[in-house]
């Protein structure tokens, strides 16, 4: 039962990522694309955690944590860059 739910959830989250990809390609403003990338990182975390449940292993946890940290830092750096023209300073 959990495996079936996992398969469905993997498909649904992947479909959500395709919608993010659409916004990434079509977004009129640069911030739309930043938001699409941020959402994509969150969807990737969900995808990795679902793979962890699917393979019944705990190894994928670290990957999800890394994606969470890098996604947050990337979004903040993008916003800083768009506002000021540089990231630090």
């Amino acid at each position, binding site marked *: *039962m*959990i495996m*079936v*739910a*996992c398969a*469905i*959830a993997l498909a*649904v*989250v992947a*479909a*959500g*990522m395709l*919608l*993010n990809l*659409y*916004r990434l390609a079509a977004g009129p*403003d*640069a*911030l*739309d694309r*930043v*938001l*699409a990338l*941020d*959402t994509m990182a*969150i*969807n990737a*975390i*969900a995808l990795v*955690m*679902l793979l*962890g*449940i699917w393979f*019944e292993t*705990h190894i994928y*946890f670290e990957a*999800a*944590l890394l994606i*969470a*940290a890098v996604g*947050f830092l990337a*979004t*903040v750096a993008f*916003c*800083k860059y*768009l*506002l000021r023209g540089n990231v630090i300073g």
Partner: protein
Amino acid sequence: MPAALEIAVTVLILAGAFFMFVGSYGLAKLPDMMRRLHGPTKATTLGVGAILVASMLDALLVTGDLSMHELLIAVFLFLTAPVTANMIAKAYILRNRAERAALPPTGRPAGWATLVRGEVPPVPEGSIRP
């Protein structure tokens, strides 16, 4: 007991996937940037939260004891999601002149916090904020 746990994990996985999809759909479908911001920042934290709790309970089902590592990701995401949303909204308002002109007046001596530079005017007597 394992059967109830299995049902709980299944329901949490499906609910999480549903919320993830709602967030992404809102991002793709809503008409302008400020409204698009609502979809992912709210729905996906709920979606990831549900999937993380499902993963914790699944570890209880597989190995026999509850896994607490997932709480780390949950806490990190719940702390950072408002920060990223605020950064994106602020950058959007400061980059778009038309968006700034369309803001309604605040109805008090202080202007919009994002746009006010320098000294903030004093708040009058009887106001809610000290």
